[in-house]
């Protein structure tokens, strides 16, 4: 019998607009079930309602928003939507455990981990009473669980504060904490999204083992099909608040029935599949046609860009030369006993004119710092970077800064924060034109309109503020700003990591197109190995501030000499094993 049953669940918020209340449905008529001992992965892009669904099972949303829930959410046969506040409290933690995305945010920074673990021990759904005996039981349980999640040094771990642990350790503690009261159901909301791939692989393996051993039913929310493929027994795909498809993992991955699922699978970059000629993207219009029945269900809903064959001549693009560059943060001083950090250590690198160079590494590998030095936002501690007639040395940028800025531009990671919230799109794009080019007045407006069109934004966007745009549109604005002054080199620092896969395809296509049409060199920084291997001409792997390896994607993927690269490849959640290597999922 299934442990968790959602029957025709509709969840929404009431909005107070102009005096009268309006209802906005976030999830429509959702029906799904989870069996004890199984993991159901709920996969969807942002705004698909997956997190809303998960949070309303534990009924956490009612604390943050005026929500309403219709339909039935049954946990072991009891409809939790009808429980009183007191009864519900006995369910949270004790019967339904929850693991959140940001472990550091979910742990109390002012309390030792041990105390927090003990607090979570509620064997009968109520805080444990009975003094010393219950405390002993709780402590024994906490120690056993910590050992189980791989933190064997239990006494020391329990005395630590959350900030003294790494992200992976924090997430392990969170898993142990969720298991403290032996819940029947475990809900995990993107628990590995904030982690590096190697840590993610460890946590996923651990999660799977723990779930099998405790025979908990598990709802695992993720946006990453690769992660779902690793961990799920069954997969549910959500799109715009509706359940699109639910089925066994193999069925979904190898023979998806719904066109959206198929499209989503196709959009995920895979090892061994080159996307240098363009990424597939989901066409909204075609998807609508298929779902409304005006087109056959087997019609593809993805479009794949085909770039023009002849690339633009690289012309006057100079090569970028990075020569033994080191960046050290902090100085050894007598006042603050902090040792200096070597963010980048003796990195040498050449990027040929018009080349698309992918730089991959985990957090703290120094890849962003290197990018910022190439863009002359930081000066190296030693070494030098040469681009054409410009040199960046420890003394700073030599020559005219504006001339350099005309040549080299940077696309930032988070389009939310890289656009001034008070400036309109047109003003944002005009900024580099005003500063770096002599264009003024009508010519300037014409160039801005041209750029808006070139990056595929609707013309009406010009007067909008960033808050009125979607994530993908914001990143397009950011790219338009970067190409405005016709640079020869673009440093793209994780430009797609804040975006959904289908939108990622669009943004990557745009970058590829710009490269073809303008002959721009790219230094593309990312943590996504599948993405960079499918798109770059050459790939460099950074680890601990050092560039440990460079090579073509093929060399890196098949014959890497370096241990770390191989570990990275092994940890990378990839769909290639399930899906035929030639574009479409095998049927």
């Amino acid at each position, binding site marked *: 019998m299934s442990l968790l049953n959602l029957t025709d669940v509709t969840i929404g918020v009431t909005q107070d607009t102009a005096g009268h209340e309006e209802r906005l449905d976030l999830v429509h008529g959702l029906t799904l079930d989870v069996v004890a001992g199984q993991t159901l992965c709920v996969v969807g892009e942002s705004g698909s309602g997956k997190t809303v669904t998960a949070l309303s099972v534990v009924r956490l949303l009612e604390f943050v928003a005026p929500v309403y829930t219709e339909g039935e959410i049954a946990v072991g046969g009891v409809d939790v939507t009808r429980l009183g506040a007191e009864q519900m409290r006995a369910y949270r933690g004790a019967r339904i455990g929850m693991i959140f995305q940001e472990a550091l945010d979910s742990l109390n920074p002012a309390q030792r981990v041990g105390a927090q673990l003990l607090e979570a021990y509620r064997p009968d759904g109520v805080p444990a009473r009975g003094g010393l005996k219950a405390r002993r039981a709780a402590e024994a349980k906490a120690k056993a669980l910590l050992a189980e999640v791989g933190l064997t040094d239990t006494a020391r771990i329990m005395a630590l504060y959350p900030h003294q642990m790494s992200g992976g350790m924090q997430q392990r503690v969170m898993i142990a904490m969720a298991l403290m009261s032996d819940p029947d159901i475990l809900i995990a909301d993107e628990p590995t999204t904030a982690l590096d791939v190697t840590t993610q692989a460890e946590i996923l393996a651990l999660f799977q083992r723990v779930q099998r051993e405790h025979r908990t039913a598990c709802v695992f929310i993720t946006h990453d099909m690769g992660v779902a493929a690793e961990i799920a027994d069954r997969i549910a795909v959500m799109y715009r608040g509706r359940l699109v498809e639910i089925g066994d993992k193999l069925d979904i991955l190898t023979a998806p029935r719904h066109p959206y699922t198929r499209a989503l699978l196709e959009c995920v970059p895979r090892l061994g599949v080159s996307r240098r000629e363009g990424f597939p993207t989901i066409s909204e219009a075609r998807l609508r046609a298929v779902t409304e029945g005006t087109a056959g269900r087997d019609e593809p809903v993805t479009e794949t860009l085909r770039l023009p064959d002849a690339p633009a001549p690289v012309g006057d693009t100079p090569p970028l030369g990075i020569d033994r560059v080191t960046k050290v943060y902090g100085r050894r001083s007598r006042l603050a006993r902090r040792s200096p950090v070597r963010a980048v250590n003796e990195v040498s690198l050449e990027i040929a004119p018009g080349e698309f160079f992918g730089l991959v590494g985990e957090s703290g590998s120094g890849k962003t710092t290197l990018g910022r030095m190439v863009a002359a936002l930081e000066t190296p501690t030693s070494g030098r970077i040469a681009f054409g007639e410009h040199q960046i040395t420890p003394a700073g940028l030599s020559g005219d800064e504006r001339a350099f800025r005309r040549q080299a*531009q940077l696309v930032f990671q988070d389009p939310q924060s890289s656009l001034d919230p008070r400036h309109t799109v047109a003003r944002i794009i005009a900024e580099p034109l005003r500063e770096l080019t002599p264009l003024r007045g009508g010519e300037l407006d014409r160039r801005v309109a041209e750029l808006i069109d070139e990056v595929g934004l609707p013309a009406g966007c010009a007067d909008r503020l960033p808050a009125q745009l979607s994530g993908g549109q914001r990143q397009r604005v950011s790219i338009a700003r970067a190409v405005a002054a016709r640079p020869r080199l673009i440093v793209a620092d994780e430009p797609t990591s804040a975006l959904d896969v289908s939108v990622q395809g669009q943004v990557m296509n745009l970058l590829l197109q710009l490269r073809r049409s303008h002959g721009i060199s790219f230094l593309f920084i990312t943590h996504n190995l599948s993405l960079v291997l499918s798109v770059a001409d050459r790939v460099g792997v950074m680890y601990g501030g050092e560039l440990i390896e460079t090579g073509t994607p093929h060399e890196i993927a098949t014959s890497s000499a370096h241990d770390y690269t191989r570990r990275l490849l092994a940890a990378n959640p990839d769909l290639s094993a399930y899906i035929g290597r030639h574009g479409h999922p095998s049927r």
Partner: protein
Amino acid sequence: MTPTAQMSVPVSGRAASPLARALRRNRLLSAATALLVLIVLAVVILPPFLPDANATDPVHRLLPPSADHLLGTDSYGRDVFSRLVSGGRTSLGLSALITVCAAFTGMVIGLVSGFYRAVDAVVMRIMDAWMSFPAIILAMALAIGLGASIWTELIALTVLFTPFTARVIRSRVLSVAARQYIGAARVSGMRPAKILVVHVLPNVLPLALVQVVILSASAMLVDGAMSFLGMGIAPPTPTWGNMIAEGRSYLVQAPWLIVVPGLAIMACVLLLNLIGSSMRDVVDPRARALGDLQRLRARGAAR
């Protein structure tokens, strides 16, 4: 009172302005603003229609409130209502002036020291030392050193309030400066000084406005205290502070002498604080979210 109150709030027509919209949505804010505007209007318009604030009349001294003298008379037989109104002119006017000056200097210092790290290290240590000195004593020392006059008080209080404003503005500038659009502006080739004006200032301004309103409330209080101590504007020019000072000898016989200006100061400070905190709700999304959450919790408990 109601018609005036409504007139002073832009009701329609300028719906596009965010301030007007905020006023319409937030009843507390609009009511407090209306009342304050009413007080300011009264203080500005009324004096010509009232008896001279400095006309003494020893025969009718210490009269209780009556139809002739709305709020009674003081120890020299001067009409308390006239003095209250013209004292309001000086008190409100001076506080406003102090606020503007302190806000301006604080803003400049805050912007510069938040944005240029080298300046920050020096300026903020000076501000720290400044703030650790007892406020009123600093003001008194300045007033004694320079002689009590309106200008001394202006300088003293500006000096006093500058570090507080500078600190608040600086912390906001620091958070704005860490946003990526500042880096993007640098990549666009913008000079730091221009970035400060084009990107940082507009994003700091809403919070600065809130800070200014709250600052003006403290300016009123300190100004009242200064005149009470005789460091501010010298009698016979009335201020609310020196009215309380003069009335305190007659606390028992004529309590209205200190109750009336005291209430006036209290009302203005309260209104300014109310306006400040409701403006913060409008400007700061985090404060608004917190407020909404509290309301939600209250509603949940009521059900």
